[in-house]
């Protein structure tokens, strides 16, 4: 179990992540709202997503490609939390955004 979790974290952690190509988004000081327009091409009705708090911070960082470790460092700096405590949360969040089609993984 622990081994599987570690493999998943490694998998996400080794890539560089960036916003997917076909998105519409509004970015404010403390909130981003995002719509995956690519879904329309696939005949699906896209749902808008609202990112606030640290989710907004992570989203803002990933405007340019970054690795998980870089994201963790910035979020830790902003929140004052320990980076090692944050890594799992950041990995899960990035996985979720990737699953929703909002993030792309670069080699």
């Amino acid at each position: 179990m622990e081994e599987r979790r570690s493999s998943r974290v490694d998998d996400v952690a080794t890539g560089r992540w960036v916003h997917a190509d076909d998105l519409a988004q509004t970015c404010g000081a403390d909130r981003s709202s995002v719509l995956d327009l690519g879904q329309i091409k696939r005949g699906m009705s896209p749902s808008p997503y609202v990112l606030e708090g640290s989710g907004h911070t992570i989203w803002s960082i990933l405007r340019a490609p970054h690795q998980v470790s870089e994201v963790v460092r910035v979020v830790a700096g902003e929140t004052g939390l320990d980076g090692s405590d944050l890594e799992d949360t950041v990995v899960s969040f990035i996985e979720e955004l990737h699953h929703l089609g909002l993030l792309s993984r670069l080699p």
Partner: protein
Amino acid sequence: MRERRLPLSDAVPLAHTLASRVAEQHDCRVLFIKGSVAEAYRLRPHRLSSDVDVWASPDDFERYLTALRRFGWRERELRPAPRILELHSTTLIHDSWPCDIDVHRVFPGMLAEPQDTFDHLWDHRSGVDVAGVSIPACDRMGTAVVTALHALRDMHVERNRAEFAYLVDTLRDSLTRAERERLVEIASATGAAQTLGPFLERLRIQPPEPPSDAAYVHRWHDWEWRRQNNNPTSRWVREAIRRPFYKVPARLWRAVVLPGDLFWQLHPEVEPTRRAMWIARGRRLGRGAAALPGVVSVAWSSYRDDQHGGR
């Protein structure tokens, strides 16, 4: 990260991009107008919009509505009230979105044939950036005309007067010669020579000569009637006098007594008791009587114009 928390200020720009992409995907020609577009061109002061205004080419209109329905958008129910100007747009709503999409078929104040009007503006379209996506819109002067006509239709509304003043102040000293010529070209091509009169006058631009055919004159009278006297009494009277002469008394009588079903459709806000209904009917007749002198004055003026060649 939940869709139900989407604030209106974010929903409106995102819905613009959605409506644009649906049009593109279904080969429908659309132009985005008013709110976000006017702000992008700095022709309107910033304020929170509650809807998306998109103008579909008349020959794509039904197909575009069908396409949007496939993505969960549906028509908002309309009250069966009489109208002076034809219904110019269809309002769509969606369970996941806090904003509406208003799909326009025509634009009030542009009195030329709707297809010719749209085609002209489409031929001069530009891309405007909304939520990081380029969406098709009227060019800047086309957007200025749309913004001016929207305000001029209801100048009794304070916000419209303020937006009209802002538009005039923005353009008055900054228009290039090419932009002035473009405004005249749009006014002529879209049948807005007269409806835009107060706007062109403020910009010290000589309006083009309006058409004189009967269809245009009829639309111009409708516009003037609606602009001068937009209240239910005026709408009922205008709707009645469009009918054959012998049907007018019955139509006016219907407006006065308002049969039960129609009353409830037009006044869903009234408590469903007989007492509340009679009180509401009494107030309605009172408002109608108070508005009648103004309506008669506009009707007389419209009749006199008809007798003197239509303008």
